[in-house]
């Protein structure tokens, strides 16, 4: 069930250039099921900003009723969010959407997790849950530049982790697909979150594989009511058939929607 709750800020930390990790506590943690779901956050008050901001759940700690978000300071909303300090509360609506299907990879199988930039955070909880299920995880994390790299250490605990930067200032130089090609990484299933060009590249490259992609779209309501976030389905590319990123997604099976 979706809840609206004023969650307590437990921690706020800048983990890379303009990248923040926010730890929140609230009852709605008990409603979080699969990794890849998101929350919709009201960062302001009656003065604004008006709309909520969608942010993926990065990790979940059920016992403490805490969860973390990792976000990039982008515009006015995320700037306000980064100013929240422990003791303050944040109005959260969630958990929202359908996340990554953890059970699609069997115990003993191998899952490749590919993240691009601010698409990396939701993979963290996924990696944990897959590992817990006995799945071997391999991570390929792409960033623009060394100063915005984060998460390598945490991911490395669960499995092999390749970091790649566009400018080569950290890890391998190039795109995530370059690393996958170069090391001929093999896997049973692929889970990815990141910018659309990255998702498209993966879709083309691995069209015959079991692939799950997490999409982003500008949102109004976040709960399926406003039709802001729809995408076409491949059966009917110019027709009426559609999926909503906020409720049908944000994670879709490859081929389910048109990127």
């Amino acid at each position, binding site marked *: 069930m979706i809840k609206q709750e004023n969650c307590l800020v437990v921690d706020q930390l800048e983990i890379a250039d303009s990248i923040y990790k926010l730890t929140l506590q609230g009852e709605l943690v008990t409603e979080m099921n699969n990794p890849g779901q998101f929350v919709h956050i009201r960062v302001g008050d009656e003065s604004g900003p008006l709309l909520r901001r969608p942010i993926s759940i990065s990790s979940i700690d059920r016992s403490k009723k805490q969860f973390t978000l990792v976000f990039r300071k982008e515009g006015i909303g995320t700037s306000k969010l980064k100013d929240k300090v422990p003791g303050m509360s944040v109005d959260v609506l969630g958990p929202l959407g359908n996340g990554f299907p953890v059970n699609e990879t069997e115990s003993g199988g191998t899952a490749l997790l590919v993240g691009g930039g601010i698409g990396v955070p939701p993979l963290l909880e996924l990696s944990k849950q897959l590992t817990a299920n006995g799945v071997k995880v391999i991570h390929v994390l792409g960033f623009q530049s060394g100063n915005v790299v984060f998460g390598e250490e945490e991911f490395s605990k669960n499995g092999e982790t390749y970091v790649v930067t566009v400018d080569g200032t950290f890890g391998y130089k190039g795109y995530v697909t370059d690393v996958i090609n170069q090391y001929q990484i093999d896997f049973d299933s692929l889970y990815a979150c990141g910018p659309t060009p990255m998702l498209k590249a993966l879709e083309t490259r691995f069209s015959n594989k079991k692939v799950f992609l997490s999409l982003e779209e500008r949102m109004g*309501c976040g709960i399926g009511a406003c039709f802001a976030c729809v995408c076409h389905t491949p059966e009917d590319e110019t027709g009426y058939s559609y999926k909503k990123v906020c409720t049908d997604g944000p994670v879709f099976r490859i081929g389910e929607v048109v990127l």
Partner: protein
Amino acid sequence: MSLLNVKLPGLDLKNPIMPASGCFGFGREFSQFYDLSSLGAIMIKATTPLPRFGNPTPRVAETSAGMLNAIGLQNPGLEKVLTEELPWLNQFDVPIIANVAGSSEEDYIEVASQISKASNVHALELNISCPNVKTGGIAFGTIPEVAKQLTKKVKEVSSVPVYVKLSPNVTNIVDMALAVEDGGADGLTMINTLIGMRLDLKTGQPILANRSGGLSGPAIKPVAIRMIYEVSQHVNIPIIGMGGIQNAEDVIEYFYAGASAVAVGTANFVDPFICPKIIDELPSLIEKLGFDHISECEGRSWRKHERLTYHRG
């Protein structure tokens, strides 16, 4: 409760608060949060004869105290609304106001005649003011004579009272209101969105794929209040007011301006519980202000305090 009941043509409302069209879908999503029977009414998403996908994405953008949308009237089409959405809504004790859209007179007539026969549809809202469709829509909403003729035709085929939704993007809103009143409208709903645009700093291009969109939210409230203030002094049909309503105080302001009921749009996205919250807060606010019933607030900005009769339950 007895402070809030309001009677309008076709609508016997337990309270004058309803979600605005397009901001509530067909109610399914919000039914997760609260019992829809607590609402005064529900204005469902615009319905067109055939299903519509609407505009490409991005379809929304934020602005200062507002948002732009260019959904483009996405909806499952008349048939599905009749066979799936309206029957589903029937489980709730709440009158439905069906928002009727189209790109030609025939479209409007087809949807109006059929949807008005549904048992829980108590009124139509004729959407002649959507800024986000290329053909039709806005043209009907800006030329008084065209609006009047359309209203007349729709009245002829509708089994329930017809409210006409006015566009604020006109030089003279009173002329538009008088024309549709003349055409036989039973009521007005106002305002629809202002036309607006936002450009992306990096690309220089509009953020919305449709380029322009409809501006809603608190930013437009002063425009709506002024238009309702003007129009309510010139027409003899009731007005359902909307534009930026966020709390009970805003509702009272709309009543003062001349509205007889209100709709809440964008605020549903900010707080999914906003409608029941406002319904909860209204009675004590009304009492605090010294009124016995919300209808006493109506038109206070301009009305000599004569007794108001027609809306009292």
